């Protein structure tokens, strides 16, 4: 076993054994243990070109990084662009979670790094890619610096000649937008790590100008499982619309966050059973949506039931004694500071929205200024869809869901009352040094 095993405790995550059923191991696996646990990776002659793509299409794999885009369609467009432009494609496994509340990608990389590396090898062979990159956040707190070391060790265990694909490990600054695909490509190309203005998508022109498949590490790991167990195994999990096993980062009451293995269609309530009385649940991530408690109690984990996509898999229960407006203001302030600062509407709009939310979260100020809500709504309209990346849109989605879910709380604040006594922030929003 590796020397870093005793550091597992430093990760603020706990696998929930009751939910795990073979998709994730309970402890980190080296390459030999990995092969014993999951089985040997199918050799290239057992998986002719086109076969993997067809299995992925049949399985219905969607990106697990937040946007939920079908992997098959991305494969088709990357290989199409490569043929049209006669440039060999590149692939990037994106392990930059960026989002401080989310741990599932780091958890997966920690426990089963070779699953992600297998997936990269398979996709690299399928696309005949000349570059394959695993991108992770550079040394961050909570012992994540060790994750990079562990991944280096895992890469050293691989046989590149057998794999047929040489995988590079890239460390990327741990900013919220660093994992956005165009920003990530910019970093990998030695650029500023900001989404550029481009008429071409990353799929058409990404790393080094090559058509590039950027795929979240959980999605890449699923490819390695589908190649072994087949698309029907994958479709046994989840629903017809949202198939496959899925990792969630769950905040429930005063528990530390856990990474839970589940699937779409499962009931939401058991995941947050130890939260006690709750006010609302944040679903998807900081670009996600607040769901009111009455809906959350009976909802299943599907986009249709929740009225919000599962996104990057964050499920955070807000206890009833917390103020949802204060919590949202806390997150939106963080999101405003994480703006790359290059697009005017986002640069100007998000801090104003954040400041107004902070006022709205304070019953004394909310009672004096009845125009706050109207201003927030107007600024949301001005920010949405007016940037080079998804950050303004995702932030606006969170704000709008808060205004809807916490509307009785807003009314209370306008009357000078707050129903949540505990105003300490629940979710992490680290103060980061401004890059600019």
């Amino acid at each position: 076993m590796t020397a870093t095993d005793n550091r597992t405790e430093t990760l603020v995550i706990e696998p929930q054994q009751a939910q795990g059923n073979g998709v994730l191991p309970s402890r980190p696996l080296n390459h030999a243990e990995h092969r014993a646990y999951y089985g040997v990776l199918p050799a290239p002659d057992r998986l002719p070109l086109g076969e993997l793509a067809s299995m992925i299409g049949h399985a219905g794999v969607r990106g697990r990084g937040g946007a939920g885009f079908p992997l098959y369609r991305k494969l088709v467009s990357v290989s199409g662009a490569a043929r049209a432009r006669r440039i060999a494609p590149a692939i990037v496994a994106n392990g930059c979670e960026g989002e401080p509340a989310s741990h599932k990608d780091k958890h997966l990389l920690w426990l089963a790094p070779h699953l992600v590396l297998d997936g990269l090898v398979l996709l690299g062979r399928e696309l005949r890619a000349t570059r394959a990159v695993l991108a992770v956040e550079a040394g961050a707190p909570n012992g994540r610096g060790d994750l990079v070391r562990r991944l280096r060790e895992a890469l050293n265990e691989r046989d590149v000649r057998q794999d047929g694909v040489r995988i590079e490990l890239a460390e990327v600054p741990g900013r919220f937008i660093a994992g956005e695909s165009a920003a990530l490509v910019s970093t990998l190309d030695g650029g500023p790590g900001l989404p550029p203005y481009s008429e071409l998508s990353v799929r058409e022109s990404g790393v080094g100008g090559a058509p590039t498949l950027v795929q979240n590490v959980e999605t890449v790991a699923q490819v390695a499982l589908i190649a072994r167990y087949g698309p029907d195994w994958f479709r046994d999990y989840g629903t017809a619309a949202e198939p496959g096993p899925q990792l969630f980062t769950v905040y429930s009451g005063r528990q530390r966050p856990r990474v839970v293995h589940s699937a779409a269609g499962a009931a939401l309530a058991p995941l947050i059973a130890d939260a006690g009385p709750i006010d609302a649940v944040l679903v998807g991530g900081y670009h996600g949506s607040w769901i009111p408690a009455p809906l959350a109690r009976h909802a299943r984990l599907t986009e249709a039931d929740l009225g919000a996509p599962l996104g990057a898999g964050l499920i955070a229960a807000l206890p009833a004694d917390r103020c949802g407006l204060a919590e949202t203001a806390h997150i939106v302030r963080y999101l405003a500071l994480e703006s790359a600062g290059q697009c005017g509407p986002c640069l100007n709009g998000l801090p104003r929205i954040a400041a107004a939310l902070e006022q709205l979260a304070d019953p004394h100020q909310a009672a004096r200024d009845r125009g706050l809500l109207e201003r927030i709504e107007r600024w949301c309209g001005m920010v949405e869809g007016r940037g080079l990346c998804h950050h303004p849109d995702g932030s606006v989605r969170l704000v709008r869901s808060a205004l809807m879910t916490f509307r009785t709380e807003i009314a209370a604040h306008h009357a000078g009352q707050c129903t949540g006594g505990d105003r300490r922030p629940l979710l992490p929003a680290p103060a980061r040094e401004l890059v600019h």
Partner: protein
Amino acid sequence: MRDNAPRDLSVDWAACQGHGLCAELLPDHITLDDWGYPIVSGPLSPAAAKRARRAVADCPALALKLRAAEQQVTIRSNPAAARSAHRG
């Protein structure tokens, strides 16, 4: 790109500094938000094509672009997913 091909106005948000010349040249298509940044509305009318080209050329930040009108090539089941910017 052919001269008579349908075009859309788009803004390079990283380059735009909110000078506002575009809104003066194309008041029917561009208004300014609270902070002076352009709000582009609707498809470009053929009558405005010439003024649009001038607005593109006159933008001090070279942030206003004319590009081929977007075609419906993607299935937009999820508007967020259809945008190029996401985490894979």
